[in-house]
């Protein structure tokens, strides 16, 4: 058939990889992410750990879009460097991927629109066919080219046809007969094309039994699940990339637990609804990204001043302003730590992988109620939207601590109940609406212990200190950071969030080049804990790695602990995640002459 063609390459030998990187690229709406999703499922069945990222535009159809899937025999949290396979629905995708293609790479190219013109290394094998045109002709749906190409991809990787079929079933079974059937047919067409193209397995990944107790999940979904497990029952949001998935997850699942997830008219409404629900006694949360967070600033201060427990998820995207909605960045540290007029208490935790997303959400709910303040869960686009393989969450580890929440029985035992009573740790006993003897006045105006407006100077100074005391008190409960690498290395990294994976891999590469390093992964961003000082004391050079231009985390650390002479910044702010190689090269180029020793 003239629509298929294969470039001749000398040896048809199979490359065995324990670490496989596949990109699928095309135009928005081509279904590139679907192919990633299907392959990811199939690879999990043969025992792989997977991780994927998306690179899409803020438009629904058209414009370059791609996804990268990495599979490994070890847990991974980065897309790594280089590409082994590329599925390209157009020339642009090949252009985008070109630089990353490894010598042994295989390219599967849809030439429905045009023959491939890009010149690739001669060692790269290319299979071309009119996937889209054929799907359009045979199935009346050009879009099924994604499933067609998936079939060819599976053959290139030597995956059993049955595994591919299973992936299709897994994904489309719920969608009903028609969709499932046409996708199964598309798969068959794909296999036929692969035969016609003479596709031989040229890249193979070790096949083992699927590992038990692992799940593939995004950070956003993990937060949603953590919220439900942690007793969260009221969620209000407003659609925004890359946090909408939390709204969607909770709209689908919270009702099962008799909870509610609302789409408000805007973010201001969302946060105030959540404040109301929290006041009534529900564990409440909102989630948003930068622009929505701006609008929530006033509500944040209200939670701080009125001492209303609230969890706020901030999934950072590339700012400022509308910025690049679908792109990765970590440039809202300053905002979550400092936004809002006046001094008020808040906490900021930062999960680094999907497990953290689950468990730290539970922690955040507890912290919010225990210390009666707003708690941020600071995430980033890559953490929120990328799918990764992590151990199944252990629900038996979930513990709910509502802090000083008085029931009527508790109230019977005391003679006076003041909502804002002065206490040693700054935390006053709280009641929920409807408690017969628990009447309160809660307000964002300055107030006395009863909650009545007060501008008395002595009261003011005292109650300001009371509120801030809670940040100190909370330190003991804040999630500790994790230290990786060589304990006695004198070169260190400090970072958080989705940088975990790239940094660990960079450290491995640096290690191979003879550089000993260690790494403090922060999980409490505000307040910073003593661990930061200890770590800084223990190194000569600390690279603070973050996806932003101005070094916001580095600035925060300098503000709290000084050490300006030791702190060196590694920043990326082009909208893409760190690759291990970015960190290696920036480390080497910025390392003091003596190698940091």
């Amino acid at each position, binding site marked *: 058939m003239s629509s298929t063609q294969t470039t001749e390459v000398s040896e048809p030998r199979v490359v065995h990889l324990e670490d496989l990187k596949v990109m699928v690229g095309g135009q928005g709406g081509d279904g590139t992410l679907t192919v990633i999703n299907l392959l990811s499922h199939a690879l999990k069945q043969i025992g792989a750990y997977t991780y994927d990222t998306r690179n899409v535009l803020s438009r629904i159809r058209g414009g370059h879009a791609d996804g990268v899937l990495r599979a490994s025999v070890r847990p991974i949290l980065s897309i790594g460097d280089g590409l082994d396979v590329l599925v390209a629905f157009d020339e642009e995708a090949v252009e985008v991927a070109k630089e990353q293609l490894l010598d042994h790479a295989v390219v599967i190219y849809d030439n429905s629109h045009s023959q491939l013109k890009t010149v690739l290394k001669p060692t790269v094998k290319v299979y071309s066919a009119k996937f889209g045109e054929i799907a359009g002709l045979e199935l009346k749906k050009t879009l099924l080219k994604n499933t067609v190409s998936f079939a060819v991809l599976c053959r290139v990787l030597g995956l059993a046809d049955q595994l591919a079929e299973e992936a299709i079933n897994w994904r489309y079974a719920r969608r009903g007969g028609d969709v499932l059937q046409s996708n199964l047919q598309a798969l068959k067409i794909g296999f036929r094309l692969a035969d016609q193209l003479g596709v031989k397995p040229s890249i193979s990944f070790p096949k083992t039994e699927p590992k038990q107790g*692992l*799940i593939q999940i995004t950070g956003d*979904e993990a937060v949603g*699940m953590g919220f*439900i*497990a942690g*007793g969260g*029952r*009221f969620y209000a949001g407003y659609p925004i990339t890359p946090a909408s998935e939390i709204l969607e997850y909770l709209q689908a*699942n919270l009702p*099962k637990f*008799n909870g*509610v997830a*609302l789409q*408000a*008219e805007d973010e*201001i*409404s*969302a946060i*105030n*609804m959540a*404040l*109301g*629900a929290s*006041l*009534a*006694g*529900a*564990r*409440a949360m909102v989630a948003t990204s930068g622009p929505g967070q701006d609008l929530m600033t*006033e509500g944040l201060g*209200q939670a701080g001043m*009125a001492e209303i427990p609230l969890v706020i998820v901030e999934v950072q995207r590339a700012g400022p302003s509308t910025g690049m909605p679908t792109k990765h960045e970590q440039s809202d540290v300053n905002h979550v730590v400092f936004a809002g007029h006046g001094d008020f208490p808040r906490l900021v935790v930062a999960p680094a992988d999907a497990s953290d997303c689950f468990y730290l959400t539970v922690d955040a709910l507890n912290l919010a109620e225990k210390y009666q303040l707003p708690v941020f869960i600071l995430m980033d686009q890559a953490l929120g939207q990328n799918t990764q393989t992590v151990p*199944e*969450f252990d*629900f*038996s580890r979930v513990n*709910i601590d*509502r802090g000083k929440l008085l029931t009527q029985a508790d*109230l*019977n035992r*005391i*003679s*006076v*109940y*003041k909502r804002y009573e002065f206490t040693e740790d700054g935390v006053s006993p709280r009641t*929920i*609406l*409807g408690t017969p*003897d*628990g*009447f*309160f*006045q809660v*307000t*964002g*105006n300055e107030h006395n212990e*009863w909650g*009545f*407006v007060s501008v008395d100077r002595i009261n003011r100074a005292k109650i300001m200190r009371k509120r801030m005391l809670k940040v100190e008190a909370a330190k003991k409960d804040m999630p500790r950071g994790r230290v990786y690498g060589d304990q006695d290395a004198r070169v260190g990294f400090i970072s958080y969030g989705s940088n975990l994976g790239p940094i660990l891999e960079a450290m491995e590469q640096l290690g191979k080049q003879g550089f000993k390093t260690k790494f403090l992964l922060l999980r409490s961003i505000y307040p910073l804990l003593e661990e930061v000082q200890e770590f800084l004391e223990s190194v000569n050079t600390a690279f603070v790695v973050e996806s932003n231009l101005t070094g916001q985390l580095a600035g925060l650390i300098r503000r709290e602990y000084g050490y300006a002479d030791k702190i060196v910044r590694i920043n990326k702010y082009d909208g893409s995640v760190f690759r291990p190689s970015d960190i290696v090269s920036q480390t080497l180029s910025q390392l003091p002459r003596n190698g940091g020793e």
Partner: protein
Amino acid sequence: MGVSEVPKVFTPQTPIWCPGCGDFGVLAALKKALNDLKIPPHETILVGGIGCSGHIHNDLLVYGYHSLHGRLLPTAIGIKLANPRLTVIAAGGDGDGYAIGGNHFLHALRRNPSIVYLVMNNGTYGLTKGQPSPTAQIGFEGTKEIPFEPILTALSIRSTTFVARGFSGNQVQLQFLIKEAIQHANAGKGFAFLDVLSPCVTYNDTYAEWRKSTVDMNADKSFDPTNRALVFERVLNTLQEGKIPTGLLYKGESPSFESMQLKDPASPIATQDLTPAGKIEEFKKLIARYR
């Protein structure tokens, strides 16, 4: 409350209002209505806005919350959804509700949550010293904008179920309207919107004017408060005659927000047992599709 002599909880405050402020009348009528209807105080939450009017929650022995400027409605909705058993009353000013809070007003009308919304409408921003509000008459403090008429806008939302206007200078009518509003909301019928003309004697003393210009639409037996288009027309015409329509202006039916959103309104979110112990199996089902 407990039996102790010394009060166990806060003692309501004396209002901060200027002598003669219309808000005193609103407070009096509200107290009377709550008493007459025997609403349990501890199951009542009064959400105040920011403004002179918004301080009303300090002056009653019910649960009180002082929200952000303009944000009393989302807060009240959050409360109602978390615990539909509560009597939820949002009360604030016209600046609070129709200027900065206008969007929440629109969407609350549309969603129809079963809460009472009392607006103490004085045509000015009392607490910030007398600037014109959206309901200010043209010329007041130099304003050059046509006043907003919340009644018409409430009628324009097809899911409104209770639209009324009172006057703090007419206690009998006001008490009646507040009672109706509370009963409407507490029966789960939806959003009870009650605009109350409440003069600001300091910056915009409209007592005399409003005594003259208010008309009780319910006094006319031909007035049918269930025909939206007709009510719209009557209200519009009355306004064009330079009169201000008051009374229970519209009553309709539409599902309440909480009945639409909650799986089991009878079992409040807010008082659920959250311990994970008994739910582990259910939780595990969440995991299944990620395996």
